[in-house]
């Protein structure tokens, strides 16, 4: 006796959250059944393995049919085929677009193209996430990217509107889109200690301050691309390190203000010029696409690592950065105060976030 056909269709579509998770995680039906058996569900319900198999198959079939709609979530809301309560619809969408930290760290800042897709095999092996799940996550990134890439208005709002995601998840996707578009390098070994959250935090700050949308909300691609003019202007900041008098003056103002307040004062004093050169040079180079990509590598190399090797506590880093950015205002020969604030305000936030072990 073999079962040829075995289906269950409810007027309200039944969604089992546990099975949905297994499906999203890319497990095959038999693996999912095995995992469910291990969860002790048979003992709880008195069901048999055959029942579990049939149930799992059924749910998988439903999810498979729903997947097409999940690719364009507003369709899920308007379609007539599956009657699903709104709260369940939201859950389906949110979970479908959720991603694994390990996975997103692998592809963050990479071009979302076919070439990268071939690397998914390696990512799957490396992270232990099933290939199927990797594909879903990658396709989600790509789909969101394609839809909002050319769109006007706030990136987060656009994502929220077209994919009906929660605020949190929309922000994360905004970061992913922003990173993918600017191709920030995040995979280098020295960046491995950074989490997706760190990058997403930086992305948000940059979107708010460094993109076109930050100054003019009527421009295309405003939230996705960095403000070219701003980057162009940044080379004006070079004077801070190129002009020796200015650099010395800057150092003395900072040192005067911080004397006795830092536990690593002497190290700071010794390193001031190096650090300042690093930060200003990063700014000056941002006109080149390649250097934009290396932004995080540079920040870690030029600032985070030197401080870390001298064992600066985070509080000292904060005090230093605050003083470092603020004291520029008292440098008489420096005319680009606004530019400096736009640059340093964001950078300070990013650096503080990036400064950890």
């Amino acid at each position: 006796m073999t079962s040829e056909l075995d289906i269950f269709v409810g007027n309200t579509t039944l969604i089992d959250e546990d099975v949905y998770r297994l499906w999203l995680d890319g497990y095959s039906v038999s693996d999912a059944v095995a995992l469910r058996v291990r969860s002790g569900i048979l003992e709880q319900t008195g069901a048999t393995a055959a029942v579990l198999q049939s149930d799992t198959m059924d749910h998988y079939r439903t999810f498979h049919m729903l997947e097409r709609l999940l690719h364009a979530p507003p369709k899920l809301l308007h379609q007539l085929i599956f009657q699903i309560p709104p709260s369940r619809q939201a859950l389906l969408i949110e979970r479908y677009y959720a991603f694994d930290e390990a996975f997103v760290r692998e592809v963050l800042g990479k071009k979302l193209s076919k070439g990268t897709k071939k690397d998914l095999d390696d990512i799957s092996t490396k992270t232990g996430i099933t290939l199927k799940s990797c594909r879903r996550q990658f396709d989600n990134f790509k789909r969101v990217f394609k839809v909002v890439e050319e769109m006007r208005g706030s990136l987060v709002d656009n994502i929220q509107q077209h994919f009906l995601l929660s605020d949190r998840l929309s922000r994360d996707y905004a970061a992913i889109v922003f990173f993918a578009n600017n191709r920030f390098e995040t995979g280098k070994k020295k960046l491995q200690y950074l989490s997706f959250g760190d990058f997403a935090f930086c992305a948000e700050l940059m979107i708010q301050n460094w993109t076109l949308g930050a100054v003019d909300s009527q421009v295309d691609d405003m939230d996705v691309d960095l403000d070219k003019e701003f980057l162009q202007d940044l080379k004006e900041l070079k004077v801070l390190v190129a002009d020796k008098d200015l650099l010395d003056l800057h150092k003395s103002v900072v040192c005067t203000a911080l004397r006795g307040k830092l536990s690593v004062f002497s190290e700071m004093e010794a390193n001031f010029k190096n650090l300042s050169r690093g930060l200003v040079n990063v700014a000056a180079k941002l006109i080149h696409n390649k250097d934009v990509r290396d932004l995080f590598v540079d920040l870690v190399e030029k600032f985070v690592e030197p401080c870390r090797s001298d064992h600066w506590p985070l509080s000292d880093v904060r005090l230093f950065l605050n003083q470092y950015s603020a004291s520029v205002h008292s440098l008489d020969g420096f005319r680009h105060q606004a530019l400096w604030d736009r640059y340093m305000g964001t950078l300070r936030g990013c650096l503080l976030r990036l400064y950890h072990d």
Partner: protein
Amino acid sequence: MPGKLKVKIVAGRHLPVMDRASDLTDAFVEVKFGNTTFKTDVYLKSLNPQWNSEWFKFEVDDEDLQDEPLQITVLDHDTYSANDAIGKVYIDIDPLLYSEAATVISGWFPIYDTIHGIRGEINVIVKVDLFNDLNRFRQSSCGVKFFCTTSIPKCYRAVIIHGFVEELVVNEDPEYQWIDRIRTPRASNEARQRLISLMSGELQRKIGLKVLEMRGNAVVGYLQCFDLEGESGLVVRAIGTACTLDKLSSPAAFLPACNSPCKEMKESPLVHPPSHGCRSTQNSPIHTATGSRLTQNFSVSVPTLIYTGMGSGSAGKEGGPFKALLRQQTQSALEQREFPFFTLTAFPPGFLVHVGGVVSARSVKLLDRIHNPAFVGIMGNTRSYKLLDWNSFNADEPETRDAWWAEIRQEIKSHAKALGCHAVVGYSESTSICEEVCILSASGTAAVLNPRFLQDGTVEGCLEQRLEENLPVGCGFCHIPYDELNMPFPAHLTYCYNCRKQKVPDVLFTTIDLPTDATVIGKGCLIQARLCRLKKKAQAEANATAISNLLPFMEYEVHTQLMNKLKLKGMNALFGLRIQITVGENMLMGLASATGVYLAALPTPGGIQIAGKTPNDSSYEQHISHMQKKINDTIAKNKELYEINPPETSEEVIGSPIPEPRQRSRLLRSQSESSDEVIELDLSHGKKDAFVLEIDDTDAMEDVHSLLTDVPPPSGFYSCNTEIMPGINNWTSEIQMFTSVRVIRLSSLNLTNQALNKNFNDLCENLLKSLYFKLRSMIPCCLCHVNFTVSLPEDELIQVTVTAVAITFDKNQALQTTKTHIEKSLQRASTDNEELLQFPLELCSDSLPSHPFPPAKEHLESASSNSGIPAAQRAVTVEKASPMGEGNFRNRSAPPCANSTVGVVKMTPLSFIPGAKITKYLGIINMFFIRETTSLREEGGVSGFLHAFIAEVFAMVRAHVAALGGNAVVSYIMKQCVFMENPNKNQAQCLINVSGDAVVFVRESDLEVASTQQAAATCQPLCTGGEVTT
């Protein structure tokens, strides 16, 4: 020219991409009605076209309005080649033809293609202007309302229940026409869909005409079926019950509080005092005559055809004459009718007087007319092999089919008479077709009805009222309608455990729902008997003969299984019995489903005793005693599980002067094939006697084993195939309707009856287990209206389709009410010695809210003057009597979830929606779909294909209901699900036919404040009234 149909095409959305180059579609719409077609403009390059067309107007006869569906075709415009069809929408405009139903159809309809399924949606508005036509000879029957619901619809009142209407139409099946060889599958499917739509329209119109002739205005319990007879054609047939319904216009009637009978009770003191009937002691001549005539007839049909309780004894003191009078009267009302049948399964209070038992008839017919112009009519039941008028039949003519059904109905009628009944209720008909063999089946419950509902209020005399008065309440329907001195079959009767006055059988089988006034102890449960019989492959008559020879044995075994399982559950009555016999190439399948309950009026069932055949073998003895122990344990466990703890009553209290000696009954397993021996079966047995199962062969052993393999549902789950579960009355509004389909392939190696039975049993049990598992989040919950359908699509395939609704209930309250229930029945037992009338339970049923019902008031009058039962208790009954009553006011779930873009449409096979009031019936939904694929693998195999199709069918039903302005479908039924596959060719086809009533419901929580206040107000007079009179 009595009607103008107006259609406006508004917009489309989610259309499929028809032009690969642009990834867009140039869509336009054709609107067709009859032979007139209109077109919209082409809306270029959009998947969401906004046509916003003018109003297309069709001027048509109302006859066409009833027959024709509105056909909307969405196409993709192509300049160079033929336009590609995207899909179609068929809209049945019938609901617009009654004044009280929908006034406009407006909404998003899924665009359906028989090859691709749903492809986007289209927004359409449809209106009808009807002109009054006074032509008396018109062919249309506009205005006759149709209901699938098998009870009087909730917001109506039955003035008269006229009776049975039937009709059938026959046509050639387009799939078998020569043209089918040259046209595409899509064209063929669409031709079929359209034809069936037309035929059902015509059928409905013809039935409507019959109703008008009877001077009715509605058909209740309308059941329409298709017989796909292949080469010999397509039959669409329908049965129903013609009624004259009155709309309850008062808005207050929708309030649940008014549904309670308290209102009527309050008025009762105004009614004239009770009059006492003339009590004649002599038996009516009609009575005896009926009895004797039918005993002959009976000898052939008993063991397999009439499922009733078995019993005999002398008449109750008062029962006889009244029964006779009543019968006389009812008979006169029913005599004019050819078939006194009613498709209803639930009735207005007082309608059902007595229930005799289940009557059924089957007949095997040959559809073949090409190889053999003759056909063999074999009456499955009587086993009299009749060859009917050989050459005069053309199988394609409706007359032939009419004659076939007339024959069967005649037989049903005579069976009912044998049981001393003049009517058949809960009547239904079905067919099973395999190649050229067709089994026609009909079944129902023989009953004695109250004539008051059957004719215009002319019979209202004192006689009738007296009859009413003497009808015991809550147990009356259990009392035997037949003459105990002239028992149509050997049976065992006892005095009713409720009123102690009239005789009742020890077991009662019926096809109807549990009457709302019935007193039930504990909860009920789904009981199924499953059976397979192998049959040799044969042709034509040989095949028909083989089948008709097998049928009685199957019926007998199904009956035995049901009886055994009922005993095992410790219960004594079956409701909603439905026996389906399915014929396949090489086997016959029998599946009987029913809901077992313990009726307080019927005696406690005896246990099951096993007797071995070889008493000398000690190990065998041991085995037997082991089995016996297991059975006894199971019975005890079941009694606990279903909370069956009837009050202990001593023999004295019963005081039953039953004349017959206690007779030990045996259920013989007949080894012989001879039909005569089957008749020897003596199914009677004494009340205290155990039901003896004699194990004389391995077959019997199997049976005993199979008895014990049925696993009870997991805790928190109950199941029944009736509308509601006795003993549960606090439903929440959480419902989930579902359809589940399973097909298994039998390995052809071990095809023995035994293996087959086991496979089939496992299939059904596993299916149930799966359902329990899937719905576990709804616990505590009850699966209601569980409807199994078996078909044998191919040699080694068995298909089982289940549709049911799961309803969550409030556990705490359930416990509470059962307790009061038990207390009440205990009290009843103790007070029963006195000569007092039972308080009128039936008044408390609310199936007919605020029904002006003089005899009921009469009842109340006598009850309140005679009854010694405290009023408080009556209040309890009010609460208990109905699942929709005040009992569940206290707990109801949260209001529906926040606004979504698509309105929620509930679907349920029940006639009501828990926690809600139906305020309007919008018309019947009757839809037929075909889906075909030539890329089965790509669509996820057979399971993926059918899963998607059923989901689409649900979606289309919901869309139509929403467009009518409704928010639910009640009495939903999937009448057909024919699935055929050819995996080698990567093809599959499926036909689905569904129907139901589109309704508008209002949640009780929205009415809460008003209703609770009113309930309190209306109950008050009742309570005080009771106290004063006692």
